[in-house]
Every structure is written in C-alpha cells, then in structure tokens.
C-alpha cells in the first residue's frame, strides 16, 4: 500500500514537468507570414494550433493509447476477466502478458476492463461535476445579487459534506453498487470548488468593457456568458474539466482502495485493493499492482500536460510572443 498510493501522487508532477522545457507553439506564426492569408474560423484556428503544440499531442496520445486499450482490450480477451483460468501467480509471459493473480486471474484482462470503467468514472463523474460547477459558477458570477448569495450558500453546503461520509452511509444502504453509482456520487459531490473558481473568473470578466459592449449590442445574458465570457476562459474551463476528470479517477481509486468501491465490476482501484488485500507486495507479485498504478498516474498526468499545451493554443497573445 505504501508503495502504490504515493507513487500515483508523486509521479504526476514529474510527468508534467518533463515536457515543459520542450519548445512549443510552432513557428510563432508571424502575422501574414503564413502562406494561407484567408481568414480562418476560430474553431479551425484552435485546431490548427492544437495540432502543432507538442504538449497537446503528447498528452492526447497517451490518453488515446489507454482509450484504445480500453476499447479493444475486451475484444482481445473476451469473457469474464475475473475467471480463474491461468496458473497461480505467474509472472508476465507471452501467454499471460501482465501475468496472473495468486488465484490465476488474467491481469491483462482485468486491466483492460478496469481501464474502461476508469474512463467511465472520469467522464461521468467529471462531466456531471463540470456541468453543475459551470452552471452554478456562470450564473452566480454573471447575475450576482441574491442569486449569487443563494448559489453560494448551496455551494458551501455541498462543500462541507464529505464525499466519504456520504459514501459510508450509502454503503450501508445500497448493498449492490455499480461503477455508475460511484461516478454519480463523485459527480454530485465534487463540483463546489469548480463552481467557486468559475464564479470568480466570471465575476472578474463581467466587469470588462467588452461585456458592456456586448450588452450594448443587444446580446442576451445567456449568450454573453457563452459567447463572450466562457470563450475567454476556455482553457480555464478545460483545466477545470481535466481536474474534475482526473480528480474523479483518483477519488474512485481511493474509494475502491479502501473498500468503498463498487461491489460489482472491476476498476483500477479495485485491482490495487485486491493486490494489497492478497499481499501481492510481500509475495513479490509486482505485475499485479504496477499496471493499475502506472495507468492512473499516466492518464491523470497526460490530462495535465494537455491542459498546459492548450493554454497556449487558446490564448492568441501567448502564440505571438
């Protein structure tokens, strides 16, 4: 346990720092120096720069590799990943790519199935939290006044409800919990900090003159939020989503690891939980706990790298200097 949990936390910064020294923003793009002088749409332009920023490419590639693995893995290894079909505690080999557990379960099969549920928890939990957090943050920050105060109160209430306590209660009442239930729990409890951050950003952007100019152009409030304010913080919103996505994965892994995870299905955290529960560390079965630990670290780290790169893509000023 002591080896794995810190490894997930401690490796992340290294992964982020590594590529930061890599020169990015290809070509600084002198204005008019591009061969194609046609005006580009904003979306096309973002894509253009995104695909030329190393950090973005590296981050997305890592995520894509794991995503592909999660998608095609179950096809390569069909059947129940927990079936006791192999030799007991075998090290990785041509037959058993990631080795087997001390019960003879195929760790590669467990790994690829768990990747799928990890992405599900991240996307669903992070997605729900992002939607709630952004809605609350935008409305509170843009409207202000009593609406802001009410939303602030709700945010604070949710903020002080510990996810863990809620899950302990839920664990007592729900005898069967799936991955989706876990993701919903995480989604509905992890949005408050995002709401606060987005509220603060919205609040500071709202008083900028260009928001006034949009108002004087007869643009409605909702369109000002999504057309003027939100695009100004797109990298910020993306960072928020990434943090929520990665956070959901880490929270899920933690919950699984301490035994509050799904009672059915598999996940990277459950794999580590099993490995520890069955003394994989003491028995030297490193192939049991290394893959899930590395995968969690790599996925969360790749999300961070992508975000750092996207900051340059979204901000035209950073591009030119």
């Amino acid at each position: 346990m002591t080896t794995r949990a810190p490894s997930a936390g401690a490796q992340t910064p290294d992964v982020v720092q590594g590529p930061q020294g890599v020169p990015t923003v290809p070509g600084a793009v002198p204005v008019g120096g591009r061969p194609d002088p046609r005006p580009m749409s904003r979306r096309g332009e973002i894509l253009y720069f995104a695909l030329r920023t190393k950090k973005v490419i590296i981050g997305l590639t890592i995520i894509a590799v794991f995503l592909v693995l999660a998608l095609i893995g179950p096809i390569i290894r069909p059947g129940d990943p927990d079936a006791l079909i192999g030799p007991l505690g075998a090290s990785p080999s041509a037959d058993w790519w990631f080795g087997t557990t001390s019960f003879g379960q195929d760790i590669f099969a467990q790994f690829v199935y768990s990747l799928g549920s990890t992405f599900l928890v991240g996307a669903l939990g992070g997605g729900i939290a992002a939607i709630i957090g952004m809605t609350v943050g935008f409305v509170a920050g843009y409207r202000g006044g009593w609406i802001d105060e009410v939303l602030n109160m709700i945010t604070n209430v949710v903020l002080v409800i510990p996810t863990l306590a809620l899950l302990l209660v839920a664990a007592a009442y729900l005898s069967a919990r799936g991955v989706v239930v876990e993701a919903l729990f995480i989604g509905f409890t992890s949005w408050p900090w995002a709401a606060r951050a987005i509220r603060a950003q919205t609040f500071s952007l709202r008083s900028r003159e260009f928001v006034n100019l949009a108002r004087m152009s007869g643009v409605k409030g909702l369109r000002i939020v999504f057309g003027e304010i939100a695009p100004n913080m797109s990298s910020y919103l993306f960072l928020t989503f990434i943090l929520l996505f990665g956070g959901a994965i880490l929270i899920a892994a933690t919950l699984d690891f301490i035994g509050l995870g799904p009672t059915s299905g598999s996940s990277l955290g459950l794999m580590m939980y099993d490995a520890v529960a069955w003394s994989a560390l003491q028995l030297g079965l490193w192939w049991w706990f290394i893959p899930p630990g590395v995968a969690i670290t790599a996925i969360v780290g790749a999300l961070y790298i992508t975000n750092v790169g996207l900051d340059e893509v979204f901000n035209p000023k950073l591009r030119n200097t």
Partner: protein
Amino acid sequence: MLTLERVSKTYKVGLFGGTDLAAVRDVSFSLQPGEVISLIGESGSGKSTIGKMILRLLAVNGGAITHDGTDIATLRGSALRSYYRTVQGVFQDPFSSFNPIFKADHVFGLIRGVYFGSASTAEWERKLNDALEAVTLDPGQVLHKYPHQLSGGQLQRLLIARALLLDTRYLVADEIISMLDASTRIDVLNLLGDLKARGLGILFITHDLSLGNYISERTVILRRGRIVEMGATAAVFGQPLHPYTRMLIASVPRLHEKWGQIDAGVRAGSGWAPAPGERCLFHAAVPDGGAAADLAGLAGSGLAELEAGHFVGCVAPTADGTCGGRSASAA
C-alpha cells in the same frame, strides 16, 4: 431627447457592502441631437458612472433617465434593443472594449446578428465599408486582425464605426482619447465633430478642460458626484459662477497641463474648499435651499439658474441641503 432628472447612484462598498458611496447625486441635464455636452470633472467625480447609467449598464438609485419621455429603466427585450440602436457608447480603454480572444470585427458580428439579421452579405459589407470609410479606416488593414494587432486609435475608430452602423442618435464618449497618443487624438476628436454634423448628440466625458472647451456647446462641471455649474461652454469658461470652476480654469492656462497635476495641487491641501467668506450664489438666489418648485423644473436639484441657461450649485453643499459655506461667510 435624453434627460437625466435628479439622478443618483450609490455604490455599496466595503466588507459585505456595508458602506454606501454616493458616486452621483441629484444630477439633472438633458442632451439634444446635434449637440455636444462636455461633462468635466476630476477623476472619481462620477463621470463614468453617469455614462454607464445612460447606457443602462448600471441602474440608477434615485431619479430617472428618460429617452423621448420613456424611463429607460423600464425597457426590456426589443424595446431595449431599439434603445441601443439609438444610444451608444465608447469607453476610455480601447483594448478592454474588445474581447481579446476574438478578432476585432467581432464587435460588428455582434450587432449584425442582433440588428441586421435580414441583410444580405453584400448589403452588410457595403454598410460596413461605408462606416469604416466614415471613420477613415481601411477595411483591409483592420478587419481580420486581433485587437492586440491594432493601435488604440484604430480600435476607437472601429468602435465609432460600430455606432455609425446602428442608427445612433446619442453617443456617450467616455474619455475616448485619453489613452491615445497625441497624433491620433486630434483625428478622433475631429471625427466627433463629423458625428455632430451628422446630427448626433454627444456626451463628451473628459477630465481635460481644454478639450471640453474645444469641442462642446454646453459644459457640465461635476464635483464629487454633484453638478457645481452648468451652461453654455462660452459662459462657463468666460464668466464662471462657481469658485470651483474658477479655480479649475485659473489653473489650466498656467499649467497648460492635464488634470493629474492640478488634482495633485488641489489635493495637497486636503481637497479644494471654498475660501472662508466665499459668497454662495446658489443660496443667495434660493435662500431655502431649493425647495422652490419653479426653477426650470430643477426643483431640489441643487442648481439655481442665475442667467438664462447658466446654472450654479451651492458652494459647499451639505447632506441636508443647507449651505456649509454660509456659516463661514456669516462668521
């Protein structure tokens, strides 16, 4: 006609909005098409607050702003959109008026979406080119560029072109040249002259007395949120009635400088204050402090009309409407 009737604005400041800051108090004046009024006051006197209230970006706390008789606070939906067809503003900082992540022509895209939905692309481009020509901008040089690739003068002219695209009748110009360099200042200033010739009413907000004198027919002098003097520019600058105005004018030719320095000088003595024994023309004309109801519809606004169209406020107004300067003169 745009009319302000005893308009007041109080900001909630301090921790939990516990303190009230009276930024604008009992301000009344009106703006006609084809007329330039300069609203002059030192920094913090409430000029921008007045401009923002006229543009309905801030709500008034007291009094009312009416446009051709309609209280603008009541405007919603399409009525508000048509108000913005008529009344527009340009602000001090051109770079902050443009959304930095969009190209500068985004400001035209916004009004196209709202006001010119039915216009064909060719028709729209013709209108746009006309407007840009009117502000002496070359479309090829300014369109499809990011704000940070353009100069402040170009950006301000883009914003004026934007106002021209709409059927703007009244323009609030809040210190629009104070952040431009000297060479572009005069161009933008002359552009305002062209707009006036087209029949626009312009509220020219400035802290620069000589600019106000140069461009406007009427002048409103603001101090700490109150009008201290108002009238034809020639009268206000030629025969100032209020000691504050006299002090301002006296300091201009001598320093031939901007307000920063004047303010600093004034502030050195804990702010301008009327000299002891200074006669209050307002209270001399309205001994009961303005309860009289027949002062050209300005009852209670703290202004007395001493000459035709030339108004003056109290020398040292106090919260209860009495004259803080009078006791000094009596003593």
